[in-house]
């Protein structure tokens, strides 16, 4: 009931949408075993915006990997999927 009400909310800030999605994903907690219960884990990144290496950004926009990443699962030259709508904003990167 709580979730359906949440989804019907008229105003949705990005934070609210994130909370709605998280709440929705966590709604089926009762089908999981108590020994291995469903959990919601909030991860924290240290100085995220100031320390992130931006090479991956170039690769994603180019739709092609120029360096190996993901522990070697993505190799130099591999194609990378990218939302086409991002091309409109290429000047802002």
């Amino acid at each position, binding site marked *: 009931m*709580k979730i359906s*009400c*949440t989804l019907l*909310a008229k*105003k*949705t*800030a*990005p*934070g*609210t949408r*994130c*909370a*709605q*999605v*998280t*709440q929705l*994903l*966590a709604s089926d*907690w*009762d089908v*999981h*075993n*108590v*020994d*291995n*219960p*469903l*959990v*919601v*884990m*909030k*991860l*924290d*990144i*240290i*100085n*995220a*915006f*100031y*320390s*992130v*290496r*931006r090479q*991956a*950004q*170039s*690769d*994603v*926009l180019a739709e092609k990997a120029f360096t190996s*990443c*993901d*522990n070697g*699962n*993505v190799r130099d030259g591999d194609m*990378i999927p990218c939302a086409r709508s*991002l091309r409109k*904003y290429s000047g*802002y*990167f």
Partner: protein
Amino acid sequence: MQGHASTLRFHDRTGQPHHLPCSKCGHQGDGFEKVRFAVTMNLSIGCVFQRHPACKGAIICDDIFVVAPLLEALALVAELKLILKRDLDLDLDVPNFNCYVPGNRLNDNQAHELFKNILANQQSCSDLTAIDVGVSTKGLCVAGVPIGDDAWDTTFVEEKVEAVILDVCKIHHVLTDDIIHYNMLHFCQNTHLGFLAWQGNQGPQHAHAPYFRITREFGVFSHS
């Protein structure tokens, strides 16, 4: 490309050139920085989630929320920690993790014990031993929005309201300019409470909404 380490060069009014070394970082206040950051993280995080089909997640800016059975969630987080460090030079702050076990089937002590046992027995989770600090069975704050049982939601909102009221009192004493005073209340404190009031959860915090109305004369929130 923005966000890369670079050297900024500019000429002052006398024509003298200056060079400033800039570190890699986004521009504070730039709304598009969220998109840049998401595009940067998208590949690595997506690849890790793809290998853990039992795990689902939601991400907003630098907040990552993993929703999964405990064992699978810990396996994903352990791998994510390694991949983010290698690919993006990002460090996860494990002691600051928060975990919420919904359903009220366990109390906080039982949840702590469960986390401790699993972390002690899983070799792959050795980097996550400090994780049990923030385990709760009552609720979690997701991007400023409380999700949890009604009592936890109410307490969360009440604490935030108290904090805002305290801030309003401080502003009232410090600011002498009426316009700045009004703008601070209207666009900062009022927005904060407004967000809590309409953030969509029709739980008990919604009942607080009528209580928040700014009066310029007093600079406090009054009952409507």
